């Protein structure tokens, strides 16, 4: 097994670990960290694919590498929006729970 | 030479990892923040050694970026709450 393949498998493992955290950690901030772990896993997978398609002289395949930059920036924007939303929720309700407090059918009219 | 630099990179990384285990165990937040600081110097060292070890000089720019941002986490750590910072300066 080459070192590069190891990175591909690391990517798969990061996705799995991140997904587990995404499912079982109730704190939304932990879900966001988990989302970033999964995201990094997917990014690493793309980096692994870019490295496989590399040429002598150019290094990795530049198309995936360029898209990765876009991906990282988009993931940051998503995290920033979510963190701001979470802080606002906390400030306004004192709780960060995402649990189903959706207006149940029995809720009085807003 | 290249192998020596890579080995040194691995060693620095291993030392960093050991320190990391201690720092992340806490118990206080300050100890955990040390982990971030440790990783700052550790990853820059390993990056420089490893990158120059495989002959990739562009890692210097990556390390430069990391070095500029190295203090950031610690600064964030002490500036969470401005009220806290005010209280701090009373001896």
């Amino acid at each position, binding site marked *: 097994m080459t070192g590069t393949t190891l990175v591909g498998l690391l990517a798969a493992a990061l996705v799995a670990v991140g997904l587990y955290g995404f499912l079982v950690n109730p704190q939304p901030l932990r879900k966001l960290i988990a989302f970033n772990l999964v995201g990094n896993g997917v990014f690493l997978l793309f980096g692994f694919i870019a490295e496989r398609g590399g040429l002598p002289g150019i290094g990795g395949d530049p198309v995936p590498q360029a898209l990765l930059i876009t991906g990282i920036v988009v993931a940051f924007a998503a995290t920033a929006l979510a963190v701001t939303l979470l802080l606002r929720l906390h400030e306004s309700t004192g709780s960060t729970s995402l649990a189903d407090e959706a207006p149940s059918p029995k809720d009085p009219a807003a | 030479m290249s192998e*020596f630099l890579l080995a040194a990179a691995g060693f620095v990384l291993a030392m960093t990892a050991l320190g990391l285990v201690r720092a992340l165990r806490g118990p206080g937040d300050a*100890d955990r923040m040390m982990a971030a600081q440790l990783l*700052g*110097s550790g990853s820059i060292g390993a990056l*420089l050694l490893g990158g120059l070890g495989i002959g990739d000089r562009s890692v210097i720019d990556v390390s*430069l970026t990391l070095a500029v941002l190295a203090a950031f986490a610690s600064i964030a750590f002490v500036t969470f709450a401005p009220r806290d910072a005010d209280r701090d300066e009373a001896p």
Partner: protein
Amino acid sequence: MSFALDLLTYVAVAAGAFFYLAGTIGLLRFPDTLTRLHALTKADNLGLGLIVLGLLPHAGGVADALKLVAIWLLVMLSSADAGQLIARAARRAMRRGEPPAP
């Protein structure tokens, strides 16, 4: 000449790695937060400085060499500041009696 430079690299990098080792031992063995912080910020900076010194011959030119030195200076600057800031936060936390003292 090249032999001398290689020797410089071997010696300086090895010495730098040793200081990382020292810093880590300090981190593992020292009894409380503030002394651990001390070990960390001092030893690792020296280690990085030696590594930078050892790598200078491998830099591509004057510009890269200057960048290497700048990296070291920046890490020293941020490490010194961060050490102060973390120490203050630790002291504050101790005053509040928040985390159990180690």
